Every structure is written in structure tokens, then in C-alpha cells.
């Protein structure tokens, strides 16, 4: 083997990579850097606990979410009702476990929609040098300047029945809300991705790929996109938290889930009139939203620092 190696005077005398540790992939490296971000790590644990809580919660706390008990109205936390009860005597913990699934799922799914649309639009705009770019940016600006409230009304009214027929009651509303929130929040992602593409497509490694005969699609998917994902991931984590808050605003407008589905946003909204007498009612869903948003934001922060090699951690 050694004999076949070119015993050339051109061979570089310094042996490769003094750090002889096993090959470190960018993913591993990111993880290593991420772990150093203490707040982000703590947040990951908190978020994992929250997710775990809403997933296995119903087995640990098997109380019906809509069990009305007028004798137990607005009770403060106790052993029977660890998070207290609301004004119909329903158990807030059980409702939060149930609603949390939806809130978290909406947050994640809306993020996926917004990010996907944003990445596609941004990538196409960023790759095209002519009319497609102008047109897509025009559409982006258009969406940015459209007032969202009437649009929400329209979309929900136009598509609710069809989606309900296709996906069932909760499924339909879920799909609708995810589309509505995601569909109206992709613009910043698109702009971000476009800017990234604009700068990356001029990079030499993309030119190198082009010189090797890579098609446009290959350049996009294999070379540009992976390198543009860092900031997108960060934007996406922020998207999750805005979607959770947006869902609560939709509940506020009455456009969200049916009122008997206790998403965290709706719990908070229902609790607001009882803030002075039953603060626990608002406290727990409020804290849940807050913790989720906070931890997701910190995770996003940690990811940004971890993905940006310029940053010294």
C-alpha cells in the first residue's frame, strides 16, 4: 500500500490534523458547541419534560377534561386538583395536559409549514436571477403588507367545512390553523433564505459544483441549502413560539379550536376575567406557554451560537 503511494517530494510533510480525534462532523461539532450553551441545554431539558408531560400525562392523570362539577368551582390547587379547577369545576391539570398536546403540535406544525414555504419561496427567488425573483419578492411584500385579521376570517370561512369533512373536527381545525398561522408567517423566512441564497450562490464551492456540471437543482439542494440552514433553524425555533402565541390570539378572536378544546391559549383567555379571584387558573397555562416559548427561544439562541463558527463559546 505504502509503495503505491506517490512518494512525491510534493507530499506535505506535516501530518494531517494534529487533533487525531475521530472525524468530527459538522453535526457533532454543532452538538458539542450547543452543549456548552448552558441555558440552551437547560431549556432542552425543560421542553423535553413538557413534551413528555403532555404525551404520557393522560395515563398519569386520568381525569376527564370536561367533567363539570359545580361543587368544585374555582378551587385553588389541592391534592385532588393539583392545578386547581376552573369556574365549571373542571380540572385544570387534565385540561392543560390535553390542550398542551394541541398547543405544542400547532407550534411545531405551523413552524414546519412556515419554514417549508419560506424556504421554497426564498430558495427559488434566491436562485433565479430574473423575473421569478422579482415576482416572488413582490408576493412576499404583498403578504407582509396584507392585514392578517380579515384574511384569517376569510380563510377560515372558506375552508373550514371542506377540511372538517376531510380530517374530522379537531383534525380539520388543526390543519386549518396550522395552515393559517404558517401560511401568514413564512415571509421573514423567505427573505432570510433568499438573502442566504444570494450570497451563497456566488460562493466558490457552488461555482465549483457548477464547473463540475452540477444541475441547478443539485446546486440548490446539495450545496446551498445545507449551508443556508443555520439561520433558518434559528428562525424556525422562534416560529414555534410565535405560533403558540398566535394560536392563543386566534382563540382570543374566536377563530381557533372549538371552545371546548382547552388549548393553553384558550385556558389563558378564559381565565383572564378571574385573574383577581382565581389567579391559579391563569398562572399554570401562562407559565406553560411562557416556559415553552422561553425554552424554545433559548434553544434557538443556542443553535444560532452553535451553528455560527465565528462565535467563540
Amino acid at each position, binding site marked *: 500500500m505504502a509503495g*503505491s*503511494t*506517490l512518494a*512525491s*517530494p*510534493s*507530499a*506535505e*510533510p*506535516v501530518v*494531517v*490534523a494534529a*487533533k487525531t480525534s475521530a*472525524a*468530527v*462532523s*459538522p453535526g457533532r461539532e454543532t452538538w458539542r458547541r450547543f452543549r456548552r450553551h448552558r441555558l440552551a441545554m437547560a431549556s432542552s431539558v425543560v421542553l423535553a419534560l413538557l413534551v413528555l408531560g403532555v404525551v404520557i400525562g393522560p395515563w398519569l392523570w386520568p381525569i376527564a377534561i370536561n367533567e363539570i362539577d359545580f361543587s368544585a368551582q374555582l378551587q385553588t390547587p389541592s391534592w385532588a386538583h393539583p392545578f386547581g379547577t376552573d369556574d365549571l369545576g373542571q380540572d385544570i391539570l387534565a385540561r392543560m395536559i390535553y390542550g398542551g398536546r394541541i398547543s405544542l403540535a400547532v407550534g411545531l406544525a405551523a413552524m414546519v409549514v412556515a419554514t417549508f414555504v419560506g424556504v421554497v419561496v426564498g430558495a427559488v427567488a434566491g436562485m433565479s436571477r430574473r423575473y421569478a425573483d422579482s415576482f416572488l419578492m413582490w408576493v412576499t411584500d404583498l403578504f407582509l403588507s396584507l392585514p392578517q385579521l380579515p384574511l384569517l376570517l376569510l380563510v377560515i370561512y372558506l375552508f373550514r367545512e371542506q377540511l372538517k369533512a376531510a380530517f374530522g373536527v379537531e383534525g380539520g381545525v388543526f390543519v386549518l390553523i396550522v395552515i393559517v398561522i404558517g401560511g401568514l408567517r413564512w415571509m421573514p423566512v423567505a427573505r432570510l433564505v433568499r438573502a442566504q441564497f444570494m450570497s451563497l450562490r456566488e*460562493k*466558490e*464551492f457552488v*461555482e*465549483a*459544483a*457548477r*464547473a*463540475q*456540471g*452540477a*444541475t441547478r437543482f*443539485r446546486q440548490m439542494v*446539495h*450545496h446551498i441549502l*445545507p*449551508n443556508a440552514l443555520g439561520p433558518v433553524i434559528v428562525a424556525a425555533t422562534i416560529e414555534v413560539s410565535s405560533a403558540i402565541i398566535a394560536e392563543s390570539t386566534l382563540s382570543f378572536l374566536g377563530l381557533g379550536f372549538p371552545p371546548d378544546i382547552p388549548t393553553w391559549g384558550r385556558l389563558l383567555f378564559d381565565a383572564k376575567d378571574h385573574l383577581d379571584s382565581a389567579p391559579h387558573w391563569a398562572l399554570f397555562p401562562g407559565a406553560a406557554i411562557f416556559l415553552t416559548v422561553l425554552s424554545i427561544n433559548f434553544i434557538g439562541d443556542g443553535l444560532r451560537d452553535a451553528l455560527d*463558527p465565528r462565535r*467563540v463559546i
Partner: protein
Amino acid sequence: MTTPPILSVSNLTTSFRVEGLWKPVVRNVSFDIAPKETLAVVGESGSGKSVTALSIMRLTPSGNSRIEGSIKLSGQELLTLPDADMRKIRGNDIAMIFQEPMTSLNPVLTIGFQIAEALILHRNLSRSAAEAETIRLLEKVRIPAAKSRFHEYPHRFSGGMRQRVMIAMALACKPKLLIADEPTTALDVTIQAQILELIKLLQEEEGMSVLFITHDMGVVAEIADRTVVMYNGEAVETGATEDIFARAHHPYTRSLLSAVPKLGSMTGRRRPMRFPVVDRLTGESDVPTETPDTVEASERPVIEVSNLTTRFEIRSGLLGKVQGRVHAVENVSFSVQAGETLALVGESGCGKSTTGRSVMRLIEPLAGSVLLDGVDVLKLNQHDLREQRKRMQMIFQDPFASLNPRMNVGAAIAEPLLINKLATRSEARDKVAELLRRVGLQPDMASRFPHEFSGGQRQRICIARALAVEPRLIVADESVSALDVSVKAQVINLMLELQARMKLAYLFISHDMAVVERVSHRVAVMYLGEIVEIGPREAIFGNPQHPYTKRLLAAVPIADPTRRHEKNPVSNDEIKSPVRAADYIPPIRQYREVSPGHAVMIWGEEWEKPAVQGIAA
């Protein structure tokens, strides 16, 4: 040394905190600088030379760095000085200029303000006095129309002019010591020569000492009285510059010097020559040989470029009307034989890179033809072009930017094979191993990622990637310019070897005349998008005809301190821009054949200015 030194550095150790551990970057470095002396600190990237400079100024990031040892300025210890007193030293007693003139000036403040700031701070001048003094300084650094440029912003200045502004700023308070951290590295050769001249001149006028940090042995030979060679954070050799060049003791110094291409060292040789390789530990050197004759002169050239023209339109105004054009490549013709290296030389903006990219059709040229083995590349549709591209490959300037950071090396090398369906996945794997071996890397490195490799290794990877499709032509666009000298030599050796083995044709694009002299068979000199002179290498270097070629050659620093005074002052001209008005019609050029294969453009009066006269032939 009878006079006490201006600056005395002893046992300087600077450490940075990395992941909680203190890692020394500079170890036990000691040197003195006498009044009016120029001391060069030379070393390759990562040798700790810039950190040494920053340590003297105490500008290393606070909290994450630690400076130990002693730094005395005129006998005063700087390391123990309170911050407020240290600030009085900075800019006043010690001034500093940096490598990147493009980023070292604050873009939102006028240059006048930035210079006057130091004057007001340290010399307590009034605003108007500071302004007058600033204009005087600008004149001193030979900035034309200094008065009117006081209120301009940095972006209106070219790189060379900005570096002059930086120098003016540094001189503002008549410092005892000027630290120049790679001040000419980012500049073109002619501009570099101007700046070096200026520093020398000002040093004499102001009587200051200069600490000159550089990686370029040519610059060292040009400017330094004494030299400190740094390697891996340590000063391995200190001495008078002549001594170091003539009788280097340390093996590293010897390896460094042997790797430096010296302009004129190829006189009398027809073919390119490898660099000698010196063992860094023993200093033993082999004797380089001329490469075998690789040029297949009898065959049809691999590539024939004729009348290639590439322009970029500058649009603005209400309807996006074309206001002007960049005539990046104008009516360029040349051909390259198999096994031959044609060097395209010129300064930034001359169109050499655009020519390379136009040949590759990475940029769509406006007119002309590019025949690759008889097929006109410019007439191919996208699909056929992709087919054709495997016959010509490109190696880029920046090995850090030309590899996808998220793709491992094996995948990067295999990609052209897979794209062009030249191999199955398993075949590709074997091919990658072979290619890695061929460029002097281990096959098991295929699973690693680019950031784990050094610059030279990455460039080898790029070469391996280019070789994967077994091309006929390789366009090497400044492929070795960003590398350290010793690495540069190795990569060039590799390229020469591969040429010999594979009969590759190289289009070698470079601004570095010394390297070009070493590697090329033929040379084309480009100026403002046009070839002003083309011919065999000996002819161009030995018998340059066009004034521009002459100027270019005169500006190259010679890595030999004994030849320092052979050169005459260079002009203050800036590099001209190829931007023309929309209605500009390029003149039809005539060429004169000096000797067989050596053609020179017939030049007009604009080249007959006095400034150009007197250039050493």
C-alpha cells in the same frame, strides 16, 4: 548596539483561553528595536506574529487572553501600565496599521475625522488645527487633492489609498514606533511597491522605528534591517536581514527561503521548475530539477480561445438603462497545448479571472469562441455543456471557500463522478481513494470534513476533485495565492508533477510574477481586459516590451536583500478601472511580433508618461 532600544520585548508569552484552558500562542519571544530601525517579523500563518504585534499594543481581547513577560517602550514597562496610561501610549507613542485596508477604516466616518480624532485626543489640537494637520498628513502620504478628500468616506478610496490613510492616521502623533501588520498583503504588486516605498520614505523623514510583520520574504528583503523568524509561536531566528538570507541557521528559515520564488531566478531555463524541498527539521534540501518537456506542440491545442469578449452592464436610472459597461474581457485570444501551462498575469480588475470563468462558461461571454478539442463551448446547450465540463475543470483561489463545508471530502471528490455518471457509488469510492493518494493525501481522509484540513491540504483536495473526471484542461484561478510560501511550493510541485503524468493543460491565472516565472511555459499579460503582451516565459521575463509588463516586473519585491537598491521609485498611479461609458467602442488593437510566439500590443501615447520612464529593464 550602543543606543538603547526603542522597544524591548523579552520573554513575551501570550495565551488565549480555549475551552477553559490557557493555550499559549506566542512563547518566549524576545527582540529589541533600535531607533530608526526596521525590524521584520516573518512567519507563516499561525506562527503568532500578529498576536505579538497586538500584545505589544495590549489589544488582545480582554478576559480571554493573558500576556506575560516584559515589553518596554523606551525603558517603560507597558504590561503593568494602567489602562488609562496605556491608552496614551496607543496612537501616540506606538501606532499601528493593519492588513485589511478595506475593513480597518470605519465606513461611516469621514477619513478626515478618523485621522483628526487621534490628533485631538493626543495632541490637544483644536478642530480647525487638527483639520489643517490632517490635510498636511494626507499630503504627506501622497494622497492627491488631499484637501478635497478630507470629508470623504473610506469607500471612495481604493485599497492602496486607504492604506495611505491608515498610514497618515498612524503618523498623526509622530509615534516612536510604527507597527505594520501585513500592510501590503492585500494589495496589488504595483501598489505594494508604492506603499513600501512610502513607509521607507516616511521612516526616514520622521525618524521612527518600524515593526514590520509579514509572511512575504520578498517584502522582508526589500525593507527590513533586521529580521525575526517566527515559527509555531516561537522566534526561531533573529538577525540582520542580509545574514538571514545569506546564512540562515535554523532549518525552518532555510526551508522558508528555499520555497520563496525569486524573480529572475529562472533566467536561461525554458521549462518550469519544481521548488526545492527542505526538511524543516534538518534544513536539508534536495536539488530541484527542471520538469520534463510535457508540451505536445505538434497536436492541436486543447483549447483555442479567439476574440473572447465579456462585458457586464451597469444599469441605473428610471428604466434601468445601461449607463456603462465593465469591459472585463475584450477581444482576448490565446491557445494552450496539452501539457502546457499558459499563465495569465495582471493586477486586480484586469480581467484575468473573468477570462478563466468565461472559458469555463461560468460566466456567459458576449462574443468570441472557445474551442475545447475543437468543440465550441460557447455554443453548447446546458445539457451538452455539462457533458463538456468534465473535460475542463477549475481550481479556485480560496480553498476555504471552494469546498462545501457540509460535505465530506470523499463526497466532494466523488461528486463530479456521480454527477457525470462516470462511476457507480462503489467505483467512486475506489476512485476517491486513488485520487487522494495521487495528490499526496491518505485515502482514509475521505470521511473527514474540509474544516479539519489545512489550507494546502484543502487545495490538494480541490485538485483531486478537479482530476476526478480526468480533464484535459485545468483553469487554476489564483490557486496558490492564498497559501503560505512553503505550502505554496508543495502545491505547485504537485501541479507540475500531475502535468507531467497526465499531460494536463493549465491556464494558470495569477498576480504573483515570481510564481508565474517558475511554473509557466508561456505568459499572457492582461491589462484592462486586454492581453497586452503574450509569449514564451523567457521572452516575457527576459525581454519585456510593453510598458505595463515592465512596470509589473519592476514592482515585484525581490527576495534578496543584496539586490534591494537595484530598483527605482515607482509611480503613484492607481490601477485604472475597466468601466466605460455605454457608447464606448473599444479601439481595434494591433499586435507586433517581437520574436516567434512573442507578440506585444502596440501602445499609444498614454504609456509615454514620465512616471513610467526609467524603469529598470
